[in-house]
């Protein structure tokens, strides 16, 4: 076969495999939502996951937000100084944090913590036959293991992002007041003026979508892991990388939907 034909065939195979994967993951997600909506419910498992995903992610999210907000204020200040527009710092910090940096950075940080943990735990349960055992013990793993994680991540992420936004804006405020010579009252006034409800809505939508995707990809890769410890490692890596890509891709899609 000619080289260009072989290249085309390889590209075709790649896209067919990609579409097949998207189809399998979509079906898996629909199955979790469907079975999770039916009794028996596991509220204890749900609140445990909210604590694990939300509360335990708070330190890393807070640190990320405060450093990012401060760095953003410094960057905008030094760039705006070139054309004497330093007064735009509060507006740039609030818009930058709420629309983009808050949701995306929190999403990526939580993927590192949560998606990897979900994939590794479920993968270990799969290869040690614990998931098979659960099916034989009158308990549906979709309801007991998967649905609480999916619902908890979808609900916890918006809360984390809102907190990160507040902390990030506060970080920018602190640096601007202490180092860049801004008037505190004026800074807060400009921040309030530039923050719009639609920015907050978009941040919440992004966060919920990111939470859903990161839990779904962690669950999918862990639940279907195979091949012992090495297989669990591969599944975890695949879950984290695919969640990173999906968060960045869905961020672009949502931004275009709101502002395109």
């Amino acid at each position, binding site marked *: 076969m000619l080289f260009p034909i072989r290249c085309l065939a390889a590209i075709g195979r790649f896209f067919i495999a990609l579409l097949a994967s998207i189809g399998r993951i979509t079906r898996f997600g629909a199955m979790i939502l469907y079975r999770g909506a039916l009794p028996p419910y596991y509220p*204890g498992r749900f609140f445990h996951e909210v604590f694990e995903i939300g509360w335990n992610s708070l330190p890393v999210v807070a640190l990320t937000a405060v450093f990012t907000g401060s760095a953003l204020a410094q960057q905008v200040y030094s760039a705006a100084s070139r054309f004497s527009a330093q007064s735009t710092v509060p507006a740039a910090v609030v818009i930058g944090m709420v629309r983009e940096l808050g949701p995306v950075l929190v999403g990526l940080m939580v993927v590192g913590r949560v998606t990897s943990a979900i994939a590794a735990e479920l993968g270990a349960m799969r290869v040690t*036959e614990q998931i*098979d*055992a*659960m*099916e*034989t*013990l*009158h308990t*549906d793993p979709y309801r007991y293991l998967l649905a609480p994680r999916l619902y908890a991540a979808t609900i916890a992420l918006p809360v984390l992002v809102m907190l990160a936004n507040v902390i990030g804006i506060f970080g920018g405020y602190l640096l601007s007041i202490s180092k860049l010579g801004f008037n505190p009252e004026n800074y807060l006034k400009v921040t309030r003026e530039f923050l719009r409800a639609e920015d907050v809505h978009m941040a919440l939508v992004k966060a919920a979508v990111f939470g859903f995707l990161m839990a779904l990809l962690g669950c999918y890769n862990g639940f279907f892991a195979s091949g012992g410890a090495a297989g669990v490692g591969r599944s975890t890596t695949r879950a984290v990388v695919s969640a990173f890509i999906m968060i960045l891709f869905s961020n672009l899609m949502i931004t275009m939907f709101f502002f395109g």
Partner: protein
Amino acid sequence: MPQTHPLIRIRGLKKSFGDHAVLQGVDLDIEAGQSVVIIGQSGGGKSVLLKTILGLIEPDAGSIEIEGQDIEKMSQAQLANIRDHIGMLFQGGALFDSLPVWRNITFAITQGHLRDTAKMQKLASEYLARVGLDDRILNLRSGELSGGMQKRVAIARAIAAKPEILLFDEPTAGLDPIRSDVIDDLTLSLVRDNGMTAITITHDMASVCKIADKIAFLHQGQIIWIGNTHDLRTTDNPYVRQFFDRKAEGPLH
């Protein structure tokens, strides 16, 4: 005359993983209240057979009927209903390592919920006693138990839901002869006194001779020999003979 069905009827069961054909047409009948032992070489598909009976692995061909119903034609809900009557001991125990021993044992009863703690702990203690363990391990997690203890806790978990059919995958592997005998006595008691049906996979010939009503030899994906313990001791089938006599020389390698 009414036609009687075996409790489990397996016909022409085939399963491959990639190019590796594991089951190549298994036929087996299991009557209610029988203790059936499946023997055969390691990697011969015995565990796959048990998981296929349970519906955890989908066969490529053939049928499995439980109480006259083909599990291949069942919905997920019907399959879950059938599984409610089956208790399974997995080869590695498969205890939930995030839960203490007592919650593992009562998992099927509570369906994973945390409730009636005192009552469930008492119940778990009773099942631990049946497998020769005391209640000091109730609050330990599987990582804190020895391999043999994990196996016995897993047996306690399998029988706690009072199933009608027991599937035991190497219940005495990793146990000393005395503990093995406790498990054999328990299996016999469950079959003889409680009317359960047991299907056991084991390489322990002493166990086979003690607990089996019927023995099936699985070789190269097919049941090539069926008999009772007397037949096992006297058979001239070269494969079964070599396996029972534990000899390296012979047709099996």
